[in-house]
């Protein structure tokens, strides 16, 4: 980790309160992956463009690779590991499986976090709204259509 002055951060991660000593320049992605072993959040472009590292902070999707860890003191963080209710997948996770929206899977945690935020804020989005919400999440495998189909199903707006 960095030789920076450590700073104490208290936040909730997937509902659990965590108090951590993080480096001054540490990113939230590093904290999640290296200190909490939440490796479901992926390290992609490291410049906040690809979306693979997306987590929710107070319900909003954020690129954790360019998010200061020290800055999340007092905030609520959700990662892919917190999406399911124990054994039961979230409707969105299940819809991704049902629509074969998963290929290599590296973008999937970020995709699911962004779409979870969307469906929490907007229960019944249009396809176009889903596509716009996904602008910050890149997938190289699927061409996106099955992902958008899955989001529509999870929102109860399955195509006729």
């Amino acid at each position, binding site marked *: *980790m*960095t030789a920076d002055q450590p700073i104490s951060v208290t936040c909730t991660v997937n509902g659990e309160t965590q108090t951590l000593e993080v480096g001054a320049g540490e990113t939230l992605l590093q904290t999640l992956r290296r200190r909490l072993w*939440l*490796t*479901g*959040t*992926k*390290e*992609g*472009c*490291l*410049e906040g*463009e*690809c979306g*693979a590292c997306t987590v929710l902070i107070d319900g909003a999707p954020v690129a954790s690779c360019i998010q200061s860890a020290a800055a999340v003191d007092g905030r609520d963080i959700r*990662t*892919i*590991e917190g*999406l*399911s209710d124990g054994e039961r*997948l979230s409707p969105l*996770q299940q819809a*991704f*499986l*049902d*629509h*074969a*929206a*998963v*290929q*290599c*899977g*590296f*973008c*999937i*945690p970020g995709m*699911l976090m962004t779409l979870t935020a969307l469906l929490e804020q907007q229960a019944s989005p249009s396809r*176009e709204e*889903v*596509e*716009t919400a*996904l*602008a910050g*999440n*890149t*997938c*190289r*495998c*699927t*061409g*996106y*259509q*099955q*992902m*958008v189909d899955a989001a529509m199903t999870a929102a109860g707006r399955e195509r006729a």
Partner: protein
Amino acid sequence: MKVVGSSVQRSDGEAKVRGDAVFGADLAVPGMLHARLLRAPVAAGIIRHIDTAAAKASAGVRDVVTGADVLNERAGVAVFDNPLFATDYIAYEGEPIAAVVADTAEQAEAAIRKVELTIDAETPVATPGQALMSDARMVHPSWAEFGTVGGIDFNRDGNIVSQILLDPGDVDGAFKRADRVIEGVYQTPRQYQAYLEPKMALATFEAGRYTIQVSHQYPFRLRDRLAQVLDVPKSAVRIVGHHIGGGFGAKLDLALEPYAAVLARRARRPVMMLNNPEEERLTAPCRENATVKVRSAVLNDGTILAQDVDVVFDSGAYANNHPATASIPIFMFGSIYRVGTARIRNRMVYTNTAPTGAFRGVSGPYLVFAAERHMDQIANELGRDRREYRLAMLAEDGHKMLNGQALEELSILHKAFDLVEERAPWAEQGKGKLRGVGIAAAVWLTNPQPGQATVKLNEDGTLTVVTAATDSGSGAVTTGLRQIAAECLGISADAVTITMPDTDVAGFDAGSQGSRTTHVAGRAVYDATTGVREKVIEKAAAMLETAKEDLVIEDGVVHVAGVPEMSLGLADVAMAATFSQGPIAASGSYTTPPPPHDPSRTKGMLFSTWPTPTYHVHLAEVTVDAVTGKVTVERYIIAQEVGRTINPDAVKGQVLGGLAQGLGYTLWERVDIDAGRYVQRNFESHGLPLACDMPEVEFVLMENPEAAGPYGAKGAAEPSIVPVAAVIANAVSDAIGAPIDDIPITPEAVLDALERS
């Protein structure tokens, strides 16, 4: 059929949506050290001095290694030109020069910056054009001394890495008889694979053997190549594969693995390496930039008497696998259309740029771009309708390709044109100002390279398939192979477990490339499962005291046909077998035999046939913005033949994904080179397609079961990328009334062409 043809879910799907799936980049083992590479900061130069003293003294550093410290023989897949470390000269920006191992990746990174490098930068040989000039500097002055696989000559010559020439000898005469000669030059850029998971390798050295944990598309090639560069027997290397965060061809050869291996042996500790995003961008084996010149000898009635095709492509600083695939142009011209005779020359050229390599549809996208732009050009010059002209020139079943191989099922392509026409009548498409339509067709192959599988019947009646086939996302392993085994035995796909690749455990498999897994590995699994099935029937017949011929297996139960109460569960059969004659297992091996062809036409080519062909027609409608020159794809139709569909949703996912990559290649992605260096150096400027960029896609799936394939399956994953650039360029050219013969089709190029028209 119960399992084949249904959209079974991938076995790794749940782990992937939960974030539980462990990708190579997620790996960690106790005591592991971290290594980073010092990479060349310039495209070309002479290395005068490398001073590692300060790096060695840096905090946490365990070891610093240069070419002077390790075996550094030049090696390669085809031409042995590539050393581990540059020692005397730099051949491309990003070439490894030194490696540092430290306790943390940050310490290794800090130490790398302390290596003092004295370089005399040289003017790079930046383009194939420069490389081919008579007074060009040799990218590799000692090229003539490089070894090659099997001692094959490849017609190497200075900066020419290899060249093929197919010349039937009657081409020039045909040009003399022609009413007109139509000529086009088609230029295409590099394309970066842009998988999201960076390349990595985690190496350990134990008891004289190297173990590499990695996310890799082709573990057995990795084993063989490591054995080559480490100068150890193949059996001294073990490759253990993990989930792959995308590859698309970029993870088929060596990358970080040999460095991790060498460093792990020296440190006697596990060594982890992970590229950062900029290293990926600088060193990925992009699809090669190419220039294709096509001349056609044409009669006024449209007959093509001959074609003369000259391809030059940029191999970058090293040969990679290119000499092996250099013959692909002979299958992309004169195959689906009748062109009389044809001369094909293909030269691949060294430059001081990152080595290019394999990307989905290896060379197909630019060859079909050239071939199908050229068809539009001929039709336009003759005043013929572009679709009607294609249909007039389309060859029939049994038509011989330039290698003498007959395409027995070309009528599938006629059918594909018809199916597209039903959905989008040609006469009604592309009407209106700055609106255009394009169509293109292609034949693609199914990679024939070998695969092996062992299938075990477990004592609970389930199956385990042991294979080194890899799933870099397509689902070919995690759905396709499981479905084939399940169907064959008569159980559900859920009752089939499939292994991750491990070269110590599974037999040879040629990896995820060229749509081969479902067809080739699938056939091996089918044969192995057939063996298991026979043993089950034999044992059950003995247990039920009935004839083997009377038994069927359905839903995991063996019973006498028509007498369901005379039955045994597979678990009972398995248990009984295991503790009487021994566990039930069987193996299968397959490689597609080369189709009959004329070897005299393919002398010196490593790749001389076009096995298990599949057929494709794409149509697109586009609009063009008169102010900005931006192209919008309004409609896209794909008719694709797959033999037999094992998993409809998975096939659709492959087709849509390949299309997205093709649209990116054609319209948005940029990999420009300026004086040997990449211009776009971050994620944003590269310009990958986004969800909002994708058009509505209509997919017409065509089935035509193939005898050798498992349940008739051919390859399906790769080819949807192949015709895209051609179709879009044809549509844009139609929309603006001026030819677009270069990609990417930048808005600026569109405005230029609009001005000309």
